[in-house]
């Protein structure tokens, strides 16, 4: 599966469009991590626990999107975009979406 945020796959031609595919996940912070983060908050800087959490969620969202594209029979996803929104206090939604295509 070729995943790119370009509008085409460089060096390949798009034969067929399958429409939008998407994957999303909503993650809540874990209490232990939250406590560490609130300590860290006094001094500022990177909150590693949260960075990891969001990286994991983004990978999950991407793999859900890829699974949906595979079910459609696509072999590439182009024009991929990410979006993050906080849906509730302490929870974030990560969304990845793109267009499933067949290239050759």
């Amino acid at each position, binding site marked *: 599966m070729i995943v790119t945020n370009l509008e085409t796959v460089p060096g390949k031609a798009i034969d067929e469009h399958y429409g939008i595919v998407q994957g999303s996940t909503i993650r809540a912070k874990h209490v232990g991590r939250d406590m560490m983060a609130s300590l860290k908050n006094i001094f*500022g800087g990177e909150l590693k626990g949260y960075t990891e959490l969001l990286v994991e969620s983004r990978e999950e969202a991407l793999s859900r999107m890829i699974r949906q594209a595979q079910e459609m029979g696509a072999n590439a996803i182009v024009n991929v975009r990410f979006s993050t929104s906080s849906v509730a206090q302490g929870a974030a939604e990560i969304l990845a979406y793109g267009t499933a295509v067949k290239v050759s």
Partner: protein
Amino acid sequence: MFEIIFILGGAYLIGTAVERKHYRSIAAREKETLRVPISTRKTVQEGDQQRISEATLAYGSVVVSIDRFKRFLAGLRNIFGGEVASYASLIDRARREAFLRMKESHPHADYFVNCRIETSTLSNGQGRAVGTVEVLAYGTAIYLSK
């Protein structure tokens, strides 16, 4: 009162030291990865169309939070207005760090195209909450066949 001064003072000293160390690391790593260009163009470079062996999604992200002292300064700024310089350096280093992580996730790529930056607020710093932002940098890593 004494407690507040103690926390603010500690936040100022440690926060500034952390920021300086981070800027040094960013500068060194930016120099190291200088040979790999990143651009916001949507197409690959002229004449590379036939030489591409792989094009794949690359991303890097970082979550940063403001320290208590800077938050206090920003609070003062809200009274008088003007540029909130204490937040600017935080966001600046977060963005540069995110781009570096994107580059470092594909160390052998020849260049990156269609790079985008997205910033989202995880907590806005109102009330007891402290301002925390996530910065995500993403783009397409291009590998050329040698």
